[in-house]
């Protein structure tokens, strides 16, 4: 809880720093604050108190998610000190909004009633609407911000309707009471409760970009500034999956049959559509968007397996996915700069010849996303498959495994470009901060796979 207070203050401090002329100080102050927030949430872990009359409660899993999200945002701030050094506009707002959004993600890991869930989602999303449209002069950025805002609010309305109906049936916003109500009426759920759960599923499905509520994500990923795209595909994904797991993995375990079947259908569709459409993408950001949709499918499968260990598997999966994704977006930004703003995957060409270590890190991160041993991505996917098989979802697991193999193809496309020699073209420039971020991500993606440090 003290971490959330610190983050709120940090956001305001960053905003005020924007008034002065000390643009160079923004990232260091932000990094210090984020490190503090991560440390505070770690130190607060015992005893694990409930806050605000049972509105929030931290457990080990939510502490782990909080620390990891603070860490990933910290990496993005280190990257941001270089990314934003080239923009002339005011950047204090960007840092501050990222911090505010992270505060919302913290709420999502530890809510105990639907009100905090709603507030968490909104505090997470509203800054992102602004950030996605952050390049004021760019048409594509405007389109991204506008689409994200419109579809996000639309989904929020559905989500709220779902909350209202569930409240009407269960008589409370408290997750324990709702969970008990769902268990007591598992055989014959009231129609309004069913509709409410469907609406909540629509709202959350939109946030995690599950098919058929995914159509916003490629456009928003493409149009938003790269650092924001990286934030959306990592921290936002971690936060919303922490929220989904807390809702249907921990509290409302006895889902009505119709809802559970629908969620499985969504999972299968997400795996299928995400991987299939990713196959024919050659624009790097859109490729990452569809790859993120495909990963959503695997994560949903872990949640729906209903295993007691699903939370740990989710955490490990999202962490490894986030590490690889952040690193790749940094590499992408550097390559894009060298190629004068081109975003096609051909900009990776010739990297092995000019910067072999960078190419090696890129290779590790792509292999981790594809799920090939010995990288962390392999262990993460393996873990999800084991959970699903143990709980009797053999066919779904087989299908997911086929999709995982299919997914290897489009990551290999990028790897091929990385190792193709290119005679002409500018050599990309690395500086110390970016090297540090890429090194942390690359080594993390490899190390977590070889030695998971008790995370699984």
């Amino acid at each position, binding site marked *: 809880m003290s971490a959330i207070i610190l983050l709120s203050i940090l956001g305001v401090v960053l905003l005020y720093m924007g008034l002065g002329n000390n643009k160079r100080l923004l990232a260091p102050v932000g990094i210090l604050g984020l490190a503090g927030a991560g440390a505070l949430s770690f130190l607060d872990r015992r005893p694990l108190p409930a806050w605000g009359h049972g509105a929030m409660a931290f457990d080990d899993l939510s502490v782990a998610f909080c620390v990891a999200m603070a860490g990933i945002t910290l990496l993005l701030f280190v990257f941001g000190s270089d990314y934003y050094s080239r923009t002339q506009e005011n950047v204090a707002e960007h840092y501050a909004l990222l911090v505010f959004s992270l505060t919302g993600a913290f709420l999502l890991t530890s809510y105990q009633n639907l*009100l905090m869930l*709603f*507030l968490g989602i*909104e505090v997470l999303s*509203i800054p992102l*609407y*602004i950030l996605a*449209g952050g390049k*004021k*002069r760019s*048409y*594509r950025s*405007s*389109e*991204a*911000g*506008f*689409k994200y*805002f*419109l579809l996000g*609010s*639309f989904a*929020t*309305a559905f989500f*709220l*309707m779902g*909350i*209202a*109906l569930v*409240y*009407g049936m269960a*008589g*409370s*916003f408290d997750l324990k009471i709702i969970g008990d109500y769902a268990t007591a009426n598992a055989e014959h759920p009231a129609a*309004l409760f069913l509709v409410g759960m469907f609406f909540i599923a629509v709202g959350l499905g939109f946030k995690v970009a599950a098919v058929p509520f995914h159509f916003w994500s*490629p*456009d928003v990923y*493409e*149009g938003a500034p790269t650092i924001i795209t990286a934030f959306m595909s990592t921290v936002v994904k971690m936060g919303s999956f922490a929220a989904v797991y807390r809702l249907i993995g921990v509290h409302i375990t006895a889902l009505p049959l119709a809802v559970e079947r629908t969620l499985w259908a969504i999972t299968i569709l997400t795996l299928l559509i995400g991987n299939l459409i990713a196959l024919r*993408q050659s*624009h790097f950001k*859109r490729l990452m968007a569809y790859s993120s949709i495909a990963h959503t499918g695997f994560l949903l499968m872990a949640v729906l397996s209903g295993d007691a260990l699903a939370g740990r598997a989710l955490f490990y999966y999202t962490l490894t996915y986030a590490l690889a994704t952040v690193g790749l977006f940094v590499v992408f930004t550097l390559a894009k700069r060298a190629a004068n703003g081109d975003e096609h995957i051909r900009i990776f060409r010739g990297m092995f010849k000019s910067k072999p270590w960078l190419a090696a890190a890129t290779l590790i991160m792509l292999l981790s996303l594809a799920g090939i041993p010995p990288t962390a991505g392999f262990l993460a996917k393996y873990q999800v498959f084991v959970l699903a098989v143990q709980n009797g979802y053999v066919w779904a697991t087989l299908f997911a495994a086929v999709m995982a193999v299919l997914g290897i193809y489009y990551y290999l496309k990028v790897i091929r470009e990385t190792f193709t020699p290119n005679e002409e073209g500018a050599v990309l420039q690395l500086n110390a901060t970016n090297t540090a971020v890429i090194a942390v991500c690359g080594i993390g993606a490899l190390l977590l796979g070889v030695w998971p440090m008790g995370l699984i």
Partner: protein
Amino acid sequence: MNDIVTAIRTVPLEHYVMLSFVLFSIGMAGAMFRRNTIIVLMCLELMFNSVNLLLTAFSAHHGDPGGQVFVFFIMLVAAAEVTVGLAIVVMMKRNVDSVDINQLNRMRG
């Protein structure tokens, strides 16, 4: 306060549910089919308010104030969202000189 709750209770719950479903559907249809961004924002607001109505009715019928507290939070968040939304509409107007939704739909793939 109790008078209001009693007054709300004089109407059966089903009527509130039907009314808010109708309002929600009108808002949804408008948000999906209207092309003017300002109208779309108004339709989103209508959807939020239908939820507010439903929450208030449920709250009164359950005799639990929690639902009405939630309504305040929804109003607050909806205000914040519309603020951001209008700012985005202004940015859009500057970039494409129109508030037509179709003008802002060029990315494909």
